[in-house]
């Protein structure tokens, strides 16, 4: 009886260890895939930047034009704790894009709320294809349109502000490069989160191996 109970427990321990190893291998695979995607996105951004430099001139796109006056970042990160098991905490990064440089925290909340509302409206519009229902949605949407429009306007304002360090009239390639680097930034955050998971899974697998060797 005692030995069968011990046998069952050791089977559970073995399957838990195997699960930890699989988590570790999965994290590593995802990390490599994300790094590959990030590399492609960065390459696209560099190419578009080079095209913009070619059309606008090298003197109009270089580091001497960077804004060195006091200004806070429009795109920041929110860092939270995420539980990865008993006694294990991971950092979790969330990107906050294009908050107003005047009041980043207030506008982060507005932007988050606005994005949620925008997603709800978009999903409603996709689900209800009937003209009668869509007209109801169109009638409903102006109530909430204030916040999504505000978020879009603010994001556009901040984007224009970033571009303005290279002049008022900029090449469309420079705008395209900006979008590519924004996408790259989102991937950077995903990679950072995956990096934290990978290191945590590695620590757990290492601990299991040490326990098994004792």
């Amino acid at each position, binding site marked *: 009886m005692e030995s069968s109970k011990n046998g069952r427990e050791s089977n559970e321990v073995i399957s838990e260890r195997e699960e930890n190893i699989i988590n*570790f291998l999965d994290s*590593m695979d995802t*990390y*490599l895939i994300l*790094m*590959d995607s*990030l*590399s492609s996105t*960065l390459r696209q*951004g*560099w190419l578009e*930047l080079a095209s913009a430099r070619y059309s606008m001139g090298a003197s109009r796109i270089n*580091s001497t034009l*960077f*804004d*060195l006056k*006091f*200004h*806070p*970042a*429009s*795109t*920041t*990160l*929110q*860092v939270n*704790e995420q539980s990865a098991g008993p*006694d*294990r*905490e*991971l*950092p979790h*990064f969330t990107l906050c894009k*294009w*908050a107003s440089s005047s009041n980043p*925290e207030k506008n*982060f909340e507005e932007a988050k709320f606005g994005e949620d509302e925008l997603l709800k409206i978009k999903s409603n519009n996709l689900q209800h294809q009937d003209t009668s229902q869509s007209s109801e949605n169109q009638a409903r949407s102006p109530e909430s349109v204030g916040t999504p429009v505000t978020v879009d306007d603010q994001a556009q304002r901040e*984007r224009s502000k*970033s*571009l303005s*360090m290279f002049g008022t009239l900029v090449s469309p390639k*420079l705008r395209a*490069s*900006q979008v*590519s*680097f*924004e996408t*790259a*930034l989102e991937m*950077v955050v995903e*990679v*950072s989160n995956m*990096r*934290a998971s*990978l*290191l945590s899974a*590695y620590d757990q697998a*290492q601990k299991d*191996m040490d326990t098994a*060797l004792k």
Partner: protein
Amino acid sequence: MANRVQIRTSSSALIAMIADEDTITGFLLAGVGNVDLRRKTNYLIVDSKTTVKQIEDAFKEFTAREDIAIVLISQYVANMIRFLVDSYNKPIPAILEIPSKDHPYDPAHDSVLSRVKYLFSTESVASGRR
């Protein structure tokens, strides 16, 4: 419990960059540039005139700052201060090695992957068999 590392939470942390001019230009366009009242930036542009000491100092400064959550560093720049990058083991700020225009990403040199490849190395297998 004694080994539990405290995660520093923040609602508006910055991304620091140590990279070539084009990479930094791109990320500044994406809005991550920050200049404080003392005119200190959250980036270092690495070119042919940048010394290893300057890169080391920037790395140490960015990893010590409490308002920075991620440090992006071009992999070829990280290779110049490899001993410093590999010996860094705090969760925040997270160090991310990224490719540059002239130097594609090499997983063999990534500090995170170097750390975890021990599980696949002959050393770990041999120690298990003893």
